[in-house]
Every structure is written in structure tokens, then in C-alpha cells.
């Protein structure tokens, strides 16, 4: 028997999401993902002073606010051709890493885990504990995680003034120089967060966690360990979360966190830039295009974002029978790519994630493990960045914006590859195009009819007769940690 099921409002994601499934024989036969909100940020930016982008773009998204700032600042820095002082680069990365890690934690505790506390799982050996720890709004873990998160965001108070929506990230560096004593206080914030992670999240030191190199070691390590990540691993093993949610197994990362070299200039990324399709390949920015064949937008062919445009279709929506979302379909070299923590770690060559994906492909398990591993990998790097701050030296270089420029800013947000393409003409913004991580992951079909990453990942999932909120679908959708307000801006 076949039927159509529309799921919306798809909650516990950031922003507006609707998923429509065609179900046949108790399985998802095909899926369509709809981003149902359009605000028009790219048009708002046109005609503005280029630096006004730093006020406007963070407000695209309250959870990726700093990532949007970082991409705009990177595009503006590209326009000026400006070198950034080492302090500015370190402080910028600390601010971005603070947001990315806070987002990973928010996703795990507030968005993803509450599904395992649902009554539908009553009867599973782990359910009572999942309900006690993770139940939406009231789980006891929230009483530990939210204060830890608020303490963690003190890094923002020190370095960025506030979060979300800071203006601290500028093309020349950061606006807030750090004193020697503030370095000590930043290290204290990091130390307290490390203690929370070791005690509550992992039940082990960060270094022991990131030394785990394959699925067997991971299972042995998790066995009976009284902390939230191992609790998730136990649930994942029982539910087979390593075998659902496979998308295209093509991964894209713009590269995260440039380490300054010994002369303070930008050096290698902590997590490399590149693409992964069975093997790592070099990334080429010119291979990106966006297609609007299935969006409520005007356009007749795929365009590189340097030439891209965003125009809502005029007249009646019925005039575009193929359109079902406001989201464009980004493609890399014509193909469907997944981005996010898993993609970053695949490209970077993290042994456990490579092993998980090589065994079973991209999965719910692999995406969640990648996020938590990233927390464990990035905190030690942040400790080193704080130590490397030099209080008496500059945090921000003065700059001169050109009257004309074509520029690009590519960064890694928590959810993956985020790009801003900027054209300045006569000292004003003439074009601004944004491709956000979830634009990649929750892309609609392209003009060749090829579904986006989530649309592929949902095919084949079981849906019970009469079930209106199929649980496997909930897990797969949230495993991408979608940010819908970024997706369509």
C-alpha cells in the first residue's frame, strides 16, 4: 500500500522544516524536503555599505551567528587583501570554535537525544534511563548541560562582547584585545568546560576519547560507562543507527581553523580543506554551482554563486509545479555533497570516522560521533590558541575597503561548509550570495532530478502503518543537525 506523509512542523531543528515522504510497502520510496520560510537577506544586503554586512548577516541565524560573521569578515578581508595579525586570527578562531562547540552540545542534548525518551521506545532496556536523562524540557541532563553551556559562552562575553550577534569579527581581526589576566580567565573557562565534558559527556579524558580508532574499540570503551556519549552509543547499537541515514557518501569541507605558523601568518587548517569521494581530493571553488529548478525562485540554469541571484518567483506559485521549497540546490562538480562535522573529519582523515564510513557509509551514528569527537579534538586546540595570544600585540589591522571587488569567504560552521560571495561596486554591495551548510544537506532535486543529501538518506527507512511521526525519519533528519534559517536566508 502506498501513501504520502507530510511531516511538519519538524521540530527540534533550527527553523522551519517540512518533509514529505512517499511510502510504499512500509518503506520510504522517495522524499522531498521543504524549507518553508523565505526572508530575503541577499536582497537586503544589496546597496548597503560593505561593512554593514557584519551587522546584517549574523542575524540570518541565531545559532550560527558567529559563523555568518566569520564568513562575511573573511569575504571582506579577501576584498581588502589584508593580512590579519596572529592575535586577531587566534581570537577569531576561538570565537568561532566556541560557537561551533556550543552548537554541537545544543544539538546533542536539546535537539537529538530527546527522541530516545519518547514513549514509543518504552520496553527498550535503555528507555528509563534515556527518559530520566534526556526528556525534552525536563531531562536531568539539561540541568547540567545548560549551566555548562552558559559558562562556556563566557568566552563570548570576554572575546566577542555577546552571543549571538556580535560585531567583534572584522576583516582586520577582532575588536577586543585580551589582557594577560583575561588569558588566565579564558583558560579557566576552558578548564571548567573540559571538566564537564570529561565527567558528564564522555566519562573519560578527551585524549582517551580521541585515541579510539575503530568501531570495536568504541564499543568496548562505551560498555557500561556512566556518561551521556556512551549512553548514546548503547542506544545506537541497539537501534542499528550505524545502518540508517546514508546519503551520497560524498563529503565537502572548506577547512576549519587555520593554525598560525611560527611567523604568525595563516598556516595549515586544523581540519583540512578538501572533498572526499572514497579518497581525498583537492577542493576547487570554481566547481560550485546552484540550481533553482525546484525552488520558488527565478532562474533557468545552474550558476556559480559569483554570478548567482536570488529572486522569488513572481505571480502565482502554481506557475511552478516542480517547485517545492525556497532552497536552492547547490552542487559540487555537478554532484550531491554532504557537509558537516562528519565531512570535516572524513576530509581531515580522522581514523574512527573514516573506519565507520568505510564500513557502513555515512549514517546517523557516524554524524553524531563526528560531532562529539570534534568537541574532544577542538578543546585542546583552543587551549593552545589561548596560550598563544600575545597581549601587548595588535588584535586588529586597519584596512581600506576597495571601491570595486569580487571576493569570497569560506568557513566551516558547526553544520559544515559556509560560503559568502560578495561583489562591491562603487563602494557598495552589488551582489551577495550565501550557500549555507544545510543548503547543501537539505537541497531539493536539481534540474536533472537528482535528490539532495537528506532526500537520499531518507529512502528505504521503515514507516509503520498509520505512523505519523516515524522515528527513524526523526533520527536521520536530526543527525544532520539542520539549520533551516541559514538554509534559506
Amino acid at each position, binding site marked *: 500500500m502506498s501513501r504520502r506523509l507530510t511531516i511538519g512542523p519538524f521540530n527540534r531543528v533550527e527553523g522551519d522544516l517540512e518533509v514529505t515522504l512517499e511510502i510504499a510497502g512500509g518503506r520510504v520510496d522517495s522524499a522531498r524536503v521543504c524549507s518553508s520560510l*523565505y526572508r*530575503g537577506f541577499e536582497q537586503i544586503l544589496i546597496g548597503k555599505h560593505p561593512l554593514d554586512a557584519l551587522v546584517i548577516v549574523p542575524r540570518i*541565524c541565531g545559532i550560527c551567528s558567529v559563523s555568518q560573521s566569520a564568513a562575511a569578515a573573511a569575504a571582506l578581508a579577501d576584498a581588502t587583501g589584508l593580512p590579519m595579525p596572529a592575535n586577531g586570527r587566534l581570537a577569531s578562531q576561538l570565537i568561532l570554535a566556541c560557537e561551533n562547540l556550543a552548537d554541537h552540545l545544543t544539538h546533542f542534548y536539546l535537539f537529538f537525544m530527546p527522541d530516545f525518551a*519518547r514513549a514509543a521506545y518504552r520496553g527498550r532496556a535503555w528507555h528509563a534511563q534515556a527518559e530520566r536523562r534526556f526528556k525534552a524540557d525536563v531531562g536531568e541532563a539539561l540541568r547540567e548541560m545548560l549551566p555548562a553551556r552558559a559558562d562556556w559562552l*563566557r568566552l563570548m*562575553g570576554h572575546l566577542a562582547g*555577546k552571543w*549571538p550577534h556580535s560585531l567583534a569579527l572584522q576583516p582586520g581581526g577582532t575588536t577586543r584585545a585580551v589582557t594577560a589576566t583575561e588569558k588566565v580567565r579564558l583558560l579557566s573557562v576552558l578548564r571548567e568546560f573540559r571538566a564537564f565534558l570529561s565527567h558528564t559527556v564522555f566519562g573519560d579524558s578527551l585524549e582517551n576519547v580521541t585515541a579510539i580508532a575503530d568501531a570495536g574499540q568504541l564499543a568496548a570503551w562505551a560498555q557500561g560507562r556512566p556518561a551521556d556519549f556512551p549512553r548514546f552509543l548503547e542506544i545506537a547499537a541497539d537501534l542499528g543507527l550505524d545502518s540508517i541515514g546514508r546519503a551520497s557518501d560524498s563529503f565537502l569541507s572548506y577547512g576549519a581553523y587555520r593554525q598560525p605558523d611560527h611567523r604568525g601568518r595563516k598556516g595549515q587548517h586544523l581540519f583540512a580543506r578538501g572533498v572526499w569521494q572514497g579518497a581525498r581530493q583537492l577542493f576547487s571553488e570554481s566547481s560550485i554551482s546552484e540550481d533553482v529548478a525546484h525552488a520558488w525562485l527565478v532562474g533557468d540554469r545552474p550558476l556559480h554563486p559569483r554570478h548567482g541571484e536570488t529572486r522569488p518567483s513572481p505571480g502565482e506559485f502554481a506557475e511552478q509545479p516542480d517547485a517545492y521549497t525556497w532552497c536552492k540546490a547547490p552542487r559540487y562538480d555537478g554532484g550531491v555533497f554532504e557537509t558537516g562535522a562528519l565531512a570535516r573529519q572524513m576530509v581531515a582523515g580522522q581514523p574512527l570516522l573514516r573506519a565507520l564510513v568505510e564500513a557502513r557509509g555515512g549514517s546517523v551514528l557516524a554524524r553524531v560521533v563526528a560531532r562529539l569527537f570534534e568537541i574532544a579534538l577542538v578543546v585542546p586546540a583552543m587551549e593552545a590558541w589561548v596560550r598563544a595570544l600575545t*597581549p601587548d600585540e595588535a588584535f586588529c589591522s586597519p584596512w581600506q575597503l576597495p571601491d570595486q571587488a569580487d571576493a569570497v569567504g569560506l568557513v566551516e560552521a558547526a553544520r559544515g561548509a559556509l560560503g559568502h560571495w560578495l561583489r562591491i561596486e562603487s563602494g557598495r554591495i552589488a551582489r551577495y550570495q550565501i550557500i549555507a551548510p544545510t543548503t547543501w544537506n537539505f537541497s531539493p532535486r536539481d534540474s536533472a532530478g537528482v535528490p539532495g543529501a537528506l532526500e537520499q538518506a531518507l529512502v528505504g527507512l521503515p514507516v509503520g502503518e498509520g505512523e505519523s511521526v516515524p522515528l527513524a525519519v*526523526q533520527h536521520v533528519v536530526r543527525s544532520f543537525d539542520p539549520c533551516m534559517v541559514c538554509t534559506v536566508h
Partner: protein
Amino acid sequence: MKLLWLQAAGCGGCTQSLLGAESRAGVLAQFADSGLELVFHPGLSEASGDESLAVLRGAADGTVPFDVLCVEGALLRGPGGSGRFQLLSGSGRPMIAWVRDLAARARHVIAIGSCSAYGGIISSGENLTDACGLQFDGDQEGGLLGGDFRAAAGLPVINVAGCPAHPGWIVDTLLSLSLGALGESDLDAWQRPRFYSEQLVHHGCPRNEFYEFKASAQKLSDLGCLMENMGCKGTQANADCNLRPWNGVGSCVRGGFACISCTEPGFEEPGHPFMETPKVAGIPTGLPIDMPKAWFVALAALSKSATPRRVRENSRADHAVIRPSIRKRGPK
């Protein structure tokens, strides 16, 4: 007190801000322990899909009781009055239709953030989406619900304006309402709770000494006063940001950048680049609130000529280059 929270056309940043509230066991525990129940929140509730729609339909037809409607994000009336730029997922109905229905049932309606209060950042430029606030369209009364709207308990929309709203503003407003301690006279002319809007961002500004002497930052990251050159509106902006820290220790000016007066209707279109101070004949056009221009000009000239070298030099550096002297016998 039961809360029903909707996210209209915003960024979700006010919810993120709220989750960062400093409270011993976190803001959700604080709500629960204070008798505030989240009947529905799109980012937090377990319900999804049909489960969510059932709650919202029940709330709209009166079968699911709730007291307070919190709306985050602007209300999109476009294109052509249809509200089609934001349909509530799964319902096929515009968000503005849901908001109208639910506001009619609520005892109190709260705009969380400047978008749902006045339209906010999304209403800037040509306002292609015809964005507005619940009871204001920019600085004009009206908005989605109309200037005459009163929620069931008698108050107009309570505007917890800010971009984002400070977590303390949201928590204090909700707890005051639950205790019956927030009435119409506690709201200012823009319907903001006076407890935070009857302060100026200038109050408690750490750059106070630089302001006194008009020792001004020349570029971003300088320690000096941000008013003369960098676009800072802290002397005009209604909020307690420097008395009530953000993220434990911060604020915009503490972070080294200008206050853009984000609690004010129309902040999104200042008529000048945000990070530049508009001037006529070298004098900022936006003067400190309640200050006569002639006095400002006279005092500025006098204080500039009286600026200590320490204050002048430090104002143009990103860290203090000259330390305050230490009196041998202590201050008198």
C-alpha cells in the same frame, strides 16, 4: 503559567540567547521550578509533525489551554498580503494566520525580540517580504494585530525588544507576569518593559572616562569612546546592557564595537553605515539623549582640551599604554 512559543520569520537567536541565561540549573529548570510550563516550543518540545499540529490546533480552538503567547521573529505579510513567504510547516497555512488565531486566545502576548516587536532586520531595505511586528510596523502603531489589540488579560503586546533580547529581559518579564507584577504602566511608549528600557546603554559603560574627555576611538579595537567616530548610540539607546552583563562579562561596547540601539524600532535602517557616526560640521548628529546641543558642543570642546595624556593615548590603542598614576598617600 503555560507558555506557547512560536518562531515566525526570525533567526531563532532570542531562544539561543534565552538558553544562555545564567541560572544555577539552567533556564529550563528555572522555568519549571517557577511554575512556567512550555506547552509548545518549536526548538525544544518533544512533539514533532502531527503531534505539534495537534497542540497548535487545540490551542487555537480553545481545547489546549495556555496563558502566554510568545512570538519570536517578524510577521511576513507578503507576497501581496498572502503570508506565503512563511507557511507553518505541515499546516499549509501562513504563520500570520496562526499568530492571529492564537493571539486571540492568549491572556498575554509577548513579542520576543525586535523582529516580532517592530519588524527588525528583515524589514530593512525594500522590505520585500512586507515584514512587521505584532503591534508595530517600524515606529508606526499597527503591525499584524493592530494598534487597538489587547490580549485577554487587558495588556497590549509586551515588546521585549532587542536583537537579540537579553535572557534576563525575557526571564524577568515572564516571572513578573506570572506573579501579576507587570501592568500597562510598567511598559514604556514602545511597549517595552520599563525595568530594562528606562536605562541607557551608556549607564555603566566601561569607556566612561574616554567619553567624559571625548577621547575617541579612531578605529575599531581602540579603547576610546565609540560615539564620535564608530557609530555608537549608547548615549541614546534604551537598555541596561552595561548594568546587566551579557554572557557573564560582556556587552557590545565591552566587546569593542558600537551599540546599534537594537532595542529601538527602526534600528535596522539608521540612514548611515552602522559603524560610522554621521556628523554635520564635525559634530555627531545623534547627541546624548536629553542633552542640549549647544551645551554638548561647548562641553565637548572644553573636555577635549582638558584630556589627560593618559586618556588620549590609551583611547587610540587596543590596550592601555599609560597606566593611571598611584597616589603615594592614597586617594582622599
